């Protein structure tokens, strides 16, 4: 057996037809790498169509992951390895492969039919020298090898061919000296009730591994050692899973039931799928008839005293706008999750974007401030979802929690907390009148009103969307009262800032006068770029904004410490508008609106150009 070459990190892109099982291949490789002790970051990228026309470029599904022996913050810019299951996958992704990188192709996917479907010249060899010369080409007839492995099976041809991805996975496991056991366990669980399919998948997985071992043609084998992650016990988590767990945790810590009202929408549905599993925790999920019913059922649940949550993506949030205004007017707690995707309108449902920030901040009628928090990484979705629930409950307000398709579907190792590590959530239901009679809008020092839930004797009261009189909550059209109430609701939201962590430098040169200020899922690319610049001797720092409304109390002072502030966003410039309206500093935009996350090198290049 040959000696494996040590590598610091590797970026692999599995690309194939939507039906080729590339997402499963990618998640399995991720899981195994994480178990091996590598740090990992992933980027699943798939078409909106469930089964887009087979063999076409539109139907290509990809799963990119970067794993390393050090901290990894992005799924990688260019790839070291590209697995292309067909011609369309090659056409769509060859540009992402590094010169000298390994190109693994399934030659069965390069016949004339596949070339035609990929709109490639059927008379030209797509793998001709001038195309593949810069790469190490590894040609495998995966279809044939899979069929040969399963020559004895009674499974049909279609089912046999469906095992192809296991051959690829087994082969790549061999290449990176990985252990098969985690995938074997996974397959046993997945196909436990279908022994024949299980056996076929296991056989092909092992065949792929052994093929690497025994075939002398292949010379390079690599090894990526575990990363020096801080000691502890880890698991792997996607952003949507983490958000769901954050919400369950907040309900559990506060002793409330979680009621989740939602309507299926990409890329938020996985939160519903995750929560629907956790009935033992008293999680009640409602799949409503539409987005409006979803948020309104959450309003009803919040009135009843549950931790109410609704989630969607931009188009659904647009439909929920009026109801979010009602919840803000009622001053009841709710978390509104927006897993952002490319817009406007239906936009790019399976692609990522950060273009709903202004919608979250301003997308309602009237003066309607609502706290807006955003997660930076898949793991951060746990923290921010938890904190959104905490702030909602402690300050009696709806809270927007922003995630996006990139971190929602991306995964990373998580040194998960235990219940005792979680920040306490301090709130109490009103049990008795706070005056001669119960005054539902009489506030405490943080301008927070009491939460009296139906079923509590003596505190019967009415709430509604009409402007209400201070303290009593009775309908009021008095002009001065309206102005007072509008300002009071705004002051209540503003008062949250003193409870938020201070804005700080995340990484980079703490004496720098140039800051890269990001929000949301740009975290990994910015951090990687800033660390790279600092290694080059540049003076630049990275800070990440998680609390956008209200901002941390020290924000003005913090901003004043820099001469130039670069604001990278996956939109046409939204946070920068807010920053320019609030602070007097030189803000420089960096925008990308392609439905894709930033690469670290794009940010690095921009930093170098402004230094």
């Amino acid at each position, binding site marked *: 057996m040959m000696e494996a070459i040590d590598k610091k990190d590797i970026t692999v892109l599995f690309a194939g037809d939507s039906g080729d099982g590339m997402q499963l291949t990618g998640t399995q490789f991720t899981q195994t790498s*994480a*178990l091996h*002790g590598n740090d990992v970051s992933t980027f699943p990228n798939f078409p909106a169509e469930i089964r887009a026309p087979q063999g076409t470029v539109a139907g290509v599904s990809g799963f990119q992951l970067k794993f390393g022996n050090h901290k990894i913050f992005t799924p990688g810019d260019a790839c070291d390895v590209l697995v292309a299951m067909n011609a369309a996958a090659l056409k769509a992704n060859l540009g992402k492969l590094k010169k000298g990188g390994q190109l693994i192709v399934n030659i069965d996917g390069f016949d004339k039919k596949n070339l035609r479907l990929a709109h490639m010249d059927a008379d030209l060899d797509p793998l001709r020298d001038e195309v593949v010369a810069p790469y190490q080409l590894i040609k495998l007839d995966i279809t044939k090898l899979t069929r040969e492995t399963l020559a004895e099976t009674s499974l049909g041809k279609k089912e046999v061919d469906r095992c192809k991805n296991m051959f690829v996975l087994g082969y790549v496991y061999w290449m990176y000296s990985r252990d098969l056991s985690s995938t074997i366990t996974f397959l046993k669980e997945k196909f436990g009730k279908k022994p024949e399919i299980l056996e076929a998948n296991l056989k092909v997985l092992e065949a792929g591994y052994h093929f690497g071992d025994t075939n002398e043609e292949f010379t390079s084998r690599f090894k990526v050692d*575990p990363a020096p992650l*801080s000691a*502890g*016990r*880890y*698991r*792997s988590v996607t952003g949507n899973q983490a958000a769901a*767990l954050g919400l*369950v*945790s907040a309900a*559990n810590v506060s002793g409330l*039931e979680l*009621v989740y*009202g939602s309507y299926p929408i990409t890329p938020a549905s996985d939160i519903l799928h995750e929560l629907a599993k*956790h*009935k*033992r*925790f*008293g*999680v*009640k999920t*409602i799949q*409503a*008839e*539409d987005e*409006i*019913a*979803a948020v*309104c*059922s*959450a*309003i*009803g*649940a919040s*009135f*009843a005293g*549950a931790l109410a949550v609704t989630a969607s993506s931009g188009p659904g949030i647009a439909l929920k706008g*009026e*109801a979010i205004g*009602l919840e803000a007017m*009622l001053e009841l707690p709710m978390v509104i999750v927006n897993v952002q995707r490319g817009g406007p309108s239906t936009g790019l449902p399976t692609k990522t974007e950060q273009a709903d920030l202004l919608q979250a901040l301003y997308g309602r009628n009237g003066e309607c401030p609502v706290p807006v928090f955003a997660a930076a990484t898949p793991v951060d979705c746990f923290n921010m979802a938890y904190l959104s629930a905490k702030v909602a409950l402690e300050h009696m307000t709806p809270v927007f929690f922003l995630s996006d398709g990139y971190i929602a579907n991306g995964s990373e190792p998580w040194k*998960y907390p*235990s*219940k005792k590590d979680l920040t306490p959530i301090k709130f109490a239901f009103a049990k008795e009148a706070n005056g001669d009679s119960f005054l539902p809008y009489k506030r405490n020092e943080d301008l927070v009103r009491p939460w009296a839930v*139906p*079923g*509590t*004797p*003596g*505190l*019967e*009261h*009415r*709430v*509604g*969307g009409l402007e209400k009189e201070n303290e009593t909550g*009775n309908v009021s059209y008095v002009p001065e009262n309206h102005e007072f109430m509008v300002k009071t609701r705004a002051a209540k939201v503003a008062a949250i800032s003193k409870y938020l962590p201070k804005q700080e430098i995340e990484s980079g040169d703490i004496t720098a006068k140039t800051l890269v200020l990001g929000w949301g899922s740009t975290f990994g690319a910015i951090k990687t770029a800033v660390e790279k610049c600092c290694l080059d001797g540049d003076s630049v720092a990275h800070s990440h904004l998680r609390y956008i409304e209200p901002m941390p109390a020290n924000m003005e002072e913090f901003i004043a410490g820099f001469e130039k502030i670069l604001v990278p966003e996956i939109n046409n410039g939204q946070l920068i508008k807010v920053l320019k309206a609030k602070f007097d500093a030189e803000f420089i935009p960096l925008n990308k609106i392609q439905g894709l996350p930033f690469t670290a090198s794009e940010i690095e290049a921009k930093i170098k150009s402004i230094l």
Partner: protein
Amino acid sequence: MMEAESTVKYTAKDFASDQDVRWCPGCGDYSILKQVQAVLPEVGVKKEDVVFISGIGCSSRFPYYMNTYGMHSIHGRAPSVAMGLKVANPNLSVWVITGDGDALSIGGNHLIHALRRNIDMNVLLFNNEIYGLTKGQYSPTSPQGKLTKSSPLGSVDQPFNPLALCFGAGATFIGRAMDRDPKHLRTTLLEASKHVGTSLLEIYQNCNVFNDGAFFSMTEKDTKPKNVLFLEEGQPLVFGAEQEFGIRIDGFNPVVVNRADYSDDDLWIHNSADKGKAYMLTEMFEDPTQSDMPRPFGVFYKTDRPIYEKGVIAQIDNAKSKLGEGDLDELLQGKFTWDID
């Protein structure tokens, strides 16, 4: 409703809030408010367990006048708010107050889905066949050709037949009452409140400002006997000033007959459990002044069917009893972990 019974003896006054009622003088809503307040002590639920949820429109001001928990929500969405409320706390006695525009126009989607799910609540649909709060446009129940501010040449829209719509959506209780017959309204309200599941009660309500007299042919003394049929369980369908008319079923069609010509046994005997007959009752919807067929009032149909929120809770209870109460630390840990030293 199946809420904990109250041991306190209430009177109608206990359910009246301290707010001045601000409907137009002469509005049919006053009568409905009075009957609801009067019937609640009979329903026998603790005051703190009663919640009124409304949408938007004249009738939707209703919760402000009830000394119970209440929410004046947004246009058309009261059934959705009520669904969340019941899922979170199934012990509450929830009453949805809505109108013909709120329930059948902007909120049509939520109404049909609430009925399909069979959430245990009472929906009172005040039908005045007009938009009152926006000052007089035709509604989805206004008769075709209705002259209003928004239809100066007459409305072109075909109106809904509300009870046929609700029946089609899978309602487990449908009934009809009117503001100007408080005694019958009260009885029907009580019937509706007893139903376990969604009860949908359509209440004809006179808007004396924008649609005065829309139902006078059915509510006023001189025309009511000929035009209105009151349904009574187990009794033949009879009407008229002297109860001189009856209804027979001829094939699949109801026909009006002289009672003198038939024995009562040959008439249609009301059975609110009969789905086929309930359908025929909802279709007795011609303008009674233009036909010999009267408009039915009372409980059309009721049946038992599993309740949505109970199903949701049963799954949770089942999961807990089978697998035990959830352990958060176990959940956070997940299935696969690895250690880094």
